[in-house]
C-alpha cells in the first residue's frame, strides 16, 4: 500500500480509530498493529509476508536463546503454530481466488482454486506445499538443535545463535536480491575466461518490497542482543509488531531495537494537540515533497535519462546508439532535478512514516537532516539516510576495526563499508560504483584532512559546500544511470560540452516552478536552525503555508500512483 494512494487514508483511518479505542490495552494495540502491518504489506503481495514472518521468528528465537539457554515449551508451540499457519495462509492459500471490489472488499471466492493441487503438471510436488512441508521440518529440526544448545557453553550458544540469525537473514536477502546479479556476472565471467557460460543460471525472482530494510532491522536487533545492548523481547507479538511496524516497514528508517522496541513495551502516550499538529505537519510536508516535488522532478529526470536507460554494457549496439549529448548543461539540470527527486521521495516517505507513527504515540528516528547543506562527505553521511549510515557505521565499519588499525586499515574499512552500502541499494554495478565513489571521497577528505568547521570564514564554507554539492551530483549520476555506458556518455557531455539548449531552459523553468518552495523552505530551515520553523510563525502565515502544501500535493501531483524510489531497494 502506498502512502500517496487513496487506500492509505481509509486504511489508516480505520486502524487509528481502533487503536484509539484500545488505548488502555497494550496487548490488543500490539495485536492490532501487527495485523494492520501485515495487511499494509500484503496489499502488495501476500506471499512475501511469509519472509517477514520467517525473519521475525528466526531473530526472536535466536535472540532469546542467546540470553536464556532454553525457550519454554509454550513459546515453542506458539512459534511453531504461528510460522506454520503463516506458511499455510500466506504461501499455500491462493489469495487470487478471492474476488474483490473497490478497496479490496471481498465479493466472492472461487473455492475450487483456493488451494493449489498437491502435484504440478510435471508430477512433482507443487512449490507451495513444498514450502509448507520444508517449514514444518525446518521448525522441528530447529527445535531439536536448540534443545541440545542448552548443554552448550554460554559463549558457544550465543555465537551459534548469532551466526544462525546472520546467515538466515543474509541468505534471504542474498537469494531474493542478489542471486540473479551474481549469477549473471558469473555467467559473463565464465564466458570471457572459458568461452562458455552455464545456461539457465538466473531465476525468475521477484524482489520483495522492503526486504533490505526489515532484514537490516532484525539483524541489528540480534547483534544488539548479542552485544548486551538490548534486552531480548519475550513477547512474540510485541517483537513481530516491532519488525513489521507498517509506517516504516517498506522504506525505513531502519529502526534499532533499543530505540523502537521499548516503545512497544509500555503504554503509548496520549495524543496531545502538540503531537497531533507535529505529526500532521510531518504527514503534510512529506506528501508535498513526494507528490508535488519528487514526482514532478521525475519527469525532467526521465526525459533526460530514459533514452539511455536501454543501453546495456553487453549491448553490441552500444557504440552506435545515442551519441554524446551536445547540451551538457541539460544533464547538469537533470542531475540537480534527480538530487531533489530522490531527496524528496525518500525523505517524504520518512516524514509521512514519522507523522503517522507520532499520531499513534511512537517516535521514529530522524532519517534526513538537510543533507544538501553538507560541506564534506562525512557530514553528508551524517545527514543522509541516517538510519542506514549509522547502521553501517555501528555494525560494519566498527566491526571491521573502524579507524583503530592505522591509516591504510581505516581507508580499507571505509571503502568496504561504502561498497557494501552501495550494494545494499541494489544489485547493479552502478550502485557498487556509487558506493566506491563515496568511499573514495571519504578517504580523500580524510587523507588531506579537508574538513570545514563552524568557525571557517564564509568564502571557505561556500567553496566547501559547492565542491561537496557537485560531488553529490556526480554521485547521483552513478546512482541514477541504468548502465555504465550512460555514465561515460553523460560525463563526456557534462564536462566537455557544457552547453545549453532550448530543453535546458524548459527544464530549468519546470524545476523552479515545482521546487521553488522547497528550496526557499530549506533555506529557512538552515537560517532558523529548526527543521520545522513553521510552528513559530504567526498563525495566519502558518495557515497559508498549510494551504500551499496541501493544494500543491493534491493539485500539482501527476495523475496516477507513483511508487517511492526506495521501494526498489
Amino acid at each position, binding site marked *: 500500500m502506498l502512502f500517496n494512494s*487513496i487506500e492509505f487514508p481509509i486504511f489508516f483511518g480505520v486502524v487509528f480509530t481502533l487503536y484509539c479505542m484500545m488505548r488502555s490495552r497494550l496487548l490488543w494495540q500490539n495485536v492490532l498493529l501487527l495485523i494492520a502491518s501485515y495487511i499494509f504489506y500484503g496489499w502488495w503481495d501476500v506471499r512475501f509476508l511469509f519472509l517477514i514472518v520467517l525473519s521475525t521468528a528466526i531473530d526472536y528465537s535466536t535472540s532469546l536463546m542467546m540470553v536464556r539457554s532454553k525457550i519454554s515449551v509454550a513459546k515453542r508451540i506458539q512459534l511453531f503454530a504461528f510460522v506454520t499457519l503463516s506458511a499455510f495462509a500466506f504461501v499455500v492459500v491462493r489469495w487470487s481466488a478471492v*474476488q474483490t*471490489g*473497490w478497496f479490496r472488499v471481498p*465479493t*466472492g471466492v472461487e473455492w475450487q482454486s483456493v488451494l493449489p493441487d498437491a502435484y504440478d503438471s510435471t508430477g512433482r510436488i507443487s512449490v507451495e506445499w513444498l514450502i509448507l512441508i520444508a517449514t514444518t521440518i525446518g521448525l522441528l529440526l530447529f527445535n531439536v538443535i536448540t534443545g541440545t544448545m542448552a548443554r552448550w557453553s554460554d559463549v558457544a550458544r550465543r555465537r551459534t545463535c548469532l551466526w544462525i540469525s546472520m546467515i538466515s537473514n543474509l541468505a534471504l536477502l542474498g537469494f531474493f536480491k542478489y542471486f540473479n546479479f551474481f549469477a549473471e556476472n558469473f555467467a559473463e565471467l565464465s564466458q570471457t575466461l572459458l568461452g562458455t557460460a552455464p545456461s539457465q543460471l538466473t531465476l525468475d525472482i521477484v524482489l520483495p518490497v522492503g526486504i533490505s530494510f526489515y532484514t537490516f532491522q532484525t539483524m541489528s536487533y540480534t547483534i544488539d542482543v548479542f552485544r548486551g545492548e538490548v534486552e531480548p523481547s519475550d513477547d512474540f507479538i510485541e517483537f513481530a509488531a516491532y519488525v513489521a511496524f507498517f509506517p516504516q516497514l517498506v522504506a525505513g528508517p531502519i529502526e534499532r531495537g533499543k530505540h523502537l522496541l521499548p516503545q512497544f513495551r509500555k503504554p503509548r502516550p496520549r495524543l496531545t494537540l502538540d503531537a497531533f499538529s507535529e505529526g500532521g505537519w510531518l504527514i503534510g510536508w512529506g506528501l508535498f515533497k513526494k507528490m508535488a516535488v519528487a514526482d514532478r522532478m521525475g519527469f525532467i529526470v526521465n526525459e533526460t535519462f530514459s533514452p539511455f536507460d536501454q543501453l546495456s554494457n553487453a549491448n553490441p549496439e552500444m557504440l552506435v546508439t545515442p551519441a554524446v549529448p551536445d547540451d551538457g548543461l541539460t544533464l547538469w539540470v537533470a542531475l540537480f532535478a534527480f538530487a531533489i527527486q530522490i531527496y524528496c521521495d525518500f525523505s517524504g516517505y520518512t516524514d509521512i512514516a514519522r507523522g503517522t507513527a507520532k499520531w499513534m504515540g511512537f517516535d521514529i528516528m530522524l532519517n534526513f537532516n538537510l543533507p544538501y547543506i553538507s560541506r564534506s562527505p562525512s557530514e553528508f553521511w551524517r545527514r543522509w539516510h541516517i538510519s542506514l549510515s549509522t547502521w553501517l557505521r555501528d555494525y560494519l565499519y566498527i566491526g571491521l576495526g573502524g579507524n583503530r588499525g592505522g591509516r591504510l586499515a581505516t581507508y580499507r574499512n571505509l571503502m568496504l563499508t561504502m561498497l557494501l552500502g552501495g550494494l545494499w541499494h541494489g544489485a547493479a554495478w552502478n550502485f557498487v560504483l556509487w558506493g566506491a565513489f563515496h568511499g573514495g571521497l571519504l578517504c580523500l577528505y580524510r587523507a588531506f584532512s579537508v574538513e570545514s568547521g563552524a568557525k571557517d570564514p564564509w568564502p571557505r564554507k561556500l567553496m566547501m559546500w559547492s565542491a561537496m554539492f557537485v560531488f553529490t551530483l556526480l554521485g547521483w549520476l552513478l546512482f541514477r544511470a541504468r548502465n555504465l555506458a550512460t555514465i561515460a556518455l553523460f560525463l563526456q557531455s557534462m564536462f566537455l560540452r557544457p552547453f545549453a539548449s532550448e530543453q535546458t531552459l524548459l527544464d530549468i523553468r519546470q524545476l523552479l516552478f515545482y521546487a521553488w518552495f522547497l528550496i526557499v523552505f530549506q533555506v529557512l530551515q538552515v537560517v532558523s536552525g529548526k527543521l520545522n520553523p513553521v510552528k513559530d510563525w504567526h*498563525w*495566519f502565515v502558518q*495557515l*497559508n503555508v498549510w*494551504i*500551499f502544501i496541501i*493544494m*500543491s500535493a*493534491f*493539485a*500539482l501531483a501527476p495523475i496516477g500512483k507513483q511508487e517511492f524510489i526506495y521501494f526498489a531497494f
Partner: protein
Amino acid sequence: MSRRRILRFTFGLVWSVFAAELFLRVMHPVPMLPRYVQPTPYGIRGNMPESEYWHSTPDYKIQIRTNAHGMRADNPVPFEKPPTTKRIVMLGDSFGMGFGATAEQTFLSQLEQNLSRAGIPAETLNLCVSGHGNAEQLIELENRGLKFDPDIVLVAWHHSDLEDNIRSGLFKLDEDQLVRASKSYLPGTTIAERLFRNRAYRWLAGNCQLYTWSREKASSVAQQAMLNLRPTKAVRKSLQHAQKGQEETKRGTSYPDRLSLALLTEMKRVTEEHGAEFVVVIVPRRYNRVLFATDFPIEVVEASPELDIVNPLPRFEKHSGELIYWEQSHFHFTPLGNRIVGEAVAEHILEHDLLGR
C-alpha cells in the same frame, strides 16, 4: 471557545477557500468545462436544449451553444430531411461534441465543409454528449438518431468508451450475446439538472476553479468506484487485467473490447436496417506530442471486416510534433486535430462513395 477564537476560525475558513482558489488560478489553472446535461426520456444523459455557456481553459475560451434538440448547433433541425440533402448523424463523447473547438472548427463541421468543397451538400448533425460511451450511443441512435433519417451514422470511438460501457451497466454480454442490462444510466444527472437551473450555481460551475477541481477529484473517485462495483466478477477481473496490461489473451478478446465491438456491431445493424451507412472514426490516444496510439482492437476488425473504420492515426503521425491536442485542457483536439480528423472522414466517405447512392 472564546469569541476571538471563533472569529479567527471563521476568518481562517473563508480565507482558506479564497487562498485555495488563488492557488489554483496562479499555480495550476483548472480547465473549466461544465457539462450542461439532463436526463432524457429514454434513460440516458442528453445535452440541455437551448443552452449557452462558456468553456474556459488556459488554452482557450469558447462558447458552447445547443439548439432545441440539444445538438451543438445554432439552428433548429427538423426531423424531416430536406429533399436532395444528405444527412450525417454523429454520435460520440466530448471529442465528437467538439470540446476545445468553436462550432465551425469541430471535425463534424470540417467534414461538412470538405464534402461541400467536393460538391456534395451534406448536413451534419452532432448528437454527441460528453461522457457517452458506445452503450449510450446505441440508445441515442435508436431513440433519436434514426428519426433524422440519416444517410450515414458516424460514431467517434474514444478509448474511454471501453470503461464507460462497463461503468454504465446498460448492456452486458451474455455468452457473447448483447443483452440490455439496465434501463437507465443517469449518474448525478437529475441533481446536475436542478443545480444548473440555479443562476448562482451556473456562475460557480463556470467561474470557480476550486469548485471545478474538487468536483473533478470527487468524480474521478466515484467513477473508479462505479467501475468496480457495477460489473460482475468475471468482467471486473478482465477489466483489471486490461488496465494492468496483463491481458492474457490477445487484443480484442478482453471483455471491454468484446462489449464495445458488440455495441458497434449492433449500431451497424440498426443503421443498415434503416438503409444508412455506418462508419466508425477512431479518436487516437495521445502519449506526447510525437507519440499517438489507439486502443481500438483494429486488427480484430481487419481480420473480419464487419465495421467500416476510419483510422486517422497515420495522418496524426505526419503532423508529429505539432499541437494536435490542447495540452492544458483535458487533451481535446485543437483546430488542427479537428481538421485532420475531418479530412480523414471526408476522404473516406468520398473514396467509398458512401453518399453517392
